[in-house]
């Protein structure tokens, strides 16, 4: 009930209708128009089951399923929200020491046509690098995705009290790691992890 994709959906439907009309006129005798430009990527992407982790300060992350309902592959290249002064697209990978770490995915998230990209704790996610205000449980946070064709898509998700999503961050060497078990156990205390980090 929180995801607000109605406008995006409306635009997508409008775009689909326009394509249909164009296709119609094309078949009626304008073959050169059959190479109509693809719909903007932003019109075909919906956030489903989205949520963001509540946090008092520092870093947080947003999760959910990004569904590409269109017929072309799309690539998310950046994301913005008023809730954070900086955001990154992150992936979680194993580093050379066998540790699972998260790092920026500089080439963006590509979602194949008709497919869904799962953003989840321990996997790909949208990283809020520096919260402008505390995100409290139940807050509704709006994000804007920007795609490789410069189109955008907006979604709003609720904040959830979530104890997980404490993966090590590769760029976070300046974090206070004292006393933390850096082996199998990645359940770092929120205060020393996300809250203690500043970019």
């Amino acid at each position, binding site marked *: *009930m*929180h995801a607000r994709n109605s406008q995006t959906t409306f635009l997508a439907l409008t775009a689909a209708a326009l394509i249909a009309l164009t296709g119609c006129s094309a078949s009626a005798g304008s073959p050169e128009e059959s190479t109509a430009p693809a719909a903007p990527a932003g019109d075909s992407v919906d956030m489903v*089951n*989205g*949520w963001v*982790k*509540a946090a008092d300060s520092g870093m947080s992350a947003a*999760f959910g399923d990004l569904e590409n309902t269109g017929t072309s592959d799309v690539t998310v290249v950046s994301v913005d929200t008023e809730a954070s002064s900086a955001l990154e697209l992150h992936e979680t990978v194993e580093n050379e020491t066998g540790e699972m770490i998260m790092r920026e995915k500089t080439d963006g998230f590509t979602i194949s046509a008709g497919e869904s990209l799962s953003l989840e*704790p321990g996997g790909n996610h949208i990283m809020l690098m520096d919260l402008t205000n505390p995100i*409290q*449980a*139940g*807050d509704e946070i709006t994000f804007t995705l920007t795609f490789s064709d410069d189109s955008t898509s907006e979604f709003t998700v*609720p904040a*959830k*009290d*979530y*104890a*997980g999503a404490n993966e090590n961050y590769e760029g976070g060497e300046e974090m206070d790691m004292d006393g933390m078990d850096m082996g199998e156990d990645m359940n770092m205390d929120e205060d020393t992890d996300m809250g203690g980090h500043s970019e």
Partner: protein
Amino acid sequence: MSSDRTTDHTGRSGVSRRGLLFGGAVAGIGAAAAVGADVLLNRSQPESASSRSRDAAAALHGNETVDYYGTHQAGIATTPQAHATFVALDLHAETDRAALRRMMQILTEDAARLTQGEPALADSEPELVTVPARLTVTFGFGPEFVTRAAGSGALPAWLGPLPAFTIDRLEAAWNDGDLLLQIASDDAFTVAHATRMLLKDARSFASVRWTQAGFRRAIGSEKPGTTMRNLFGQVDGTTNPSPDDDDFAQLVWANGGWLAGGTSFVLRRTHMNLDKWDRLDRSGREQSVGRTLANGAPLTGVHEHDEPEFEAKTSIGFPVIPEFSHIRRARSENTDERIFRRAYNYDHAPAGAEISDSGLLFVSYQADVTKQFVPIQRRLDELDLLNEWTTPIGSAVFAIPPGCAEGGYIGETLLA
């Protein structure tokens, strides 16, 4: 008892089977045989092992769901599930009106998803939600919640602790609360996960005050609609109103103001002294209530749903249903003084020399606590032989707000 009820509703085999087996002589046969009859009649048709395995697929109930959205919250008129957990929470000092709204939006979304077999958002055990087994989640508000949400002017007159009763031995640990979660399912596992998920989302706003878990018969153990028994062995709830009754809405649902479509919730944690009850013989047990233990029929009747004849006298002139009996004391001339019960049994580890710590989570819903519940409890407080073996040790009253439509949230009539 279900054989009667089932017959009433469907006109099928209940009575004819009884007639065939016992020729209407149930009242005259011995207690042991009557227990056997009762058990047999409530059980599903005897089946051979092979026919049981043939029907195994049809007997799965895990996928069954109860609609979440609606005029009333689910979990009240819903046929009672086998398991229920009641949780009362205390609001944190800083949980203000805006925070209450955020909390109820989150909890509503959790409940809407979990009851339909969908993981909550951020559910870290999504595999545990696939067996809803008629899961319902029902929210209730205590006086502090209502006051913070909309000021004391929004308080229903009856919302607060019940008047003191002389029989009460209340323990603070089981009393009151600001927010109630009633989580019920035919599967105790489902209740456990839903409870944890909801409490994770509530912990930013409130902390647990008490948790009380109860049970009825497992689903499939006896015919649906069978009146429950309590751990004294009594058939408990024979005259309970049915959601199908014409006057159910008038008795249960509040009208007017933010509570329209809601109701009130009373939970009386009632300890049952089974060790003392053991010392009472069968006729004494039946006289304390006014009903037979065999099938719950009034002492003047044969079938469970026979109307008691309070004027009937024994050969030496005493009332057949004693003046001090529970059913005589609980009943009012005023038909408005009725409540809708939805009780659960509890059975915890004993302490000290006792061998059981058991009782009843007496739960009732009524449009108005003061007009409906309190007069009944007053009469039972003044005189009810059953008080010899039962002791109220916890008491809580909550306002149950109405249900909501998809896109809305529980409590919106108070918080929007």
